[in-house]
């Protein structure tokens, strides 16, 4: 058996080791690859840029810790951009394990920009059944959230006193890893007419291009790439930014190249083995003819 024919039998631990090396090395030696921006990410960035101070954006943390690698930088980027532009932010966390993560990200970003809870932002926290919560906000924030995350009644919070429903906010950004993103489009956008943007995992993004092309959403951040583009735009606009997603794109570039190399090598092995099988079958046929 030749070397090429042995390829399909390569131990999977070798593949795992190569994937691990490809993930770790670019973290220590950044490649600094340029990040070109796409229309869907520019859509969200420009929308927030055009909002004046005092406008209100609702950022929904609709993801669990497993996708924090992709959704975390997205949420953090949008939050920071809003704070940078003095846009008021309301935050919900409609995924069971999101409240703790959201709290940490909000408090970190708020401290960085000297934003005051209840005045510049309001963290509403978690309520079960996202679709019902999203629908209820259409009537009044006080139905699903009588109090904020810290137990303060909404009417005692300066920022929330004049806020009743979607009519009082300019945009919803759902940072999601599941079907909740769709509920924001279905109810907040289509039923109550509030503009919606989505920040979703790369795997999910394929599904949400339908909403983007139908202009049902004003922007779409697909996976870590979306987060990196967003940070690159913040950097380009002279705002403070985090370079973690930019470095993450170095890792993703190398990983994608490695997977493509695996596909190529796997196919070389596949064709080599298929050629051997054909040769053996032809030899067997010739042998049978010789015997006759």
């Amino acid at each position, binding site marked *: 058996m030749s070397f090429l024919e042995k390829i399909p039998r390569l131990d999977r631990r070798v593949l795992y080791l190569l994937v691990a090396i490809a993930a770790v090395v670019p973290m220590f030696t950044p490649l600094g690859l340029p990040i070109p921006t796409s229309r869907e990410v520019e859509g969200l960035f420009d929308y927030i840029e055009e909002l004046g101070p005092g406008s209100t954006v609702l950022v929904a943390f609709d993801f669990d810790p497993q996708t924090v690698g992709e959704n975390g930088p997205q949420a953090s980027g949008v939050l920071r951009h809003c704070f940078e532009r003095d846009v008021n932010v309301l935050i919900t966390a409609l995924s069971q394990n999101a409240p*703790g993560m959201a709290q940490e990200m909000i408090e970190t970003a708020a401290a960085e920009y000297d934003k005051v809870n209840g005045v510049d932002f309001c963290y509403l926290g978690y309520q079960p059944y996202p679709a019902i919560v999203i629908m209820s906000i259409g009537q009044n924030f006080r139905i699903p959230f009588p109090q904020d995350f810290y137990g303060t009644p909404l009417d005692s919070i300066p920022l929330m006193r004049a806020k009743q429903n979607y009519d009082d906010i300019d945009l919803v950004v759902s940072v999601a890893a599941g079907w909740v993103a769709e509920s924001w489009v279905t109810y907040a956008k289509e039923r109550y007419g509030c503009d919606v943007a989505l920040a979703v995992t790369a795997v999910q993004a394929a599904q949400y291009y339908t909403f983007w092309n139908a202009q049902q959403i004003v922007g779409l951040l697909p996976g870590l790439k979306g987060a990196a583009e967003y940070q690159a735009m913040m950097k380009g606009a002279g705002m403070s930014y985090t370079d973690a997603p930019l470095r993450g794109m170095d890792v993703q570039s190398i990983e994608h190249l490695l997977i493509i190399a695996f596909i190529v090598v796997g196919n070389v092995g*596949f064709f080599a083995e298929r050629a051997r099988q054909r040769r053996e079958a032809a030899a067997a046929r010739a042998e049978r003819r010789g015997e006759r």
Partner: protein
Amino acid sequence: MKWEIPLVIVFVTGVILALSDFVPHQSIQDVREFFMSWLQIIGVLAVGLGLVSLTQVNLVKVRRKTPGWIYSVITLFGLVIMLVTGFVWDYREPSNPFQFLFQYALLPIYATMFSLLAFYIASAAFRAFKARNALATTILVTAVIVMLGQVPVGAKLAPLKSWIMEVPNMAGFRAILLGIGLGGVAMALKIVFGIERAYMGRD
């Protein structure tokens, strides 16, 4: 009556909720709100039921020492420790044992589980992504273009990747979503009109 009463409840509830999407009058919206709050209450009860079921299933495994029973012990230990810390300390405070466990145990565990996918995808790409015929080759070439167009190193392919995502991909997904939507409407109508009764434990 055992079958008729649930059917009447489902019919009345279904019709009211469907109407509430088209009738903006406050009276029907109030009724809708009433039903919605019931849904949340039932959901919370389901969490309690899940908790009891999880405990029972794992206790039985531990008691019978079935293969892998040690994992049931770990599950029960995790359940008890999160419940106790959650009840004793305020989950909204930034630093307490509950938050510590969440930040430094649960969060990394979840992230690790998801990260492992990268290894499996790499292995699967090597073993299964083969150009066996014309269709498989088309999928393979498309996947390579999308993978490259998705990262800075393949920026030149980004416009082609965008076209793939926004035209053929979107057409496929739109068909799937329309199919799901129409299927959902058909199933809802069957349930509301009592044609589909599997939820009551019989066909």
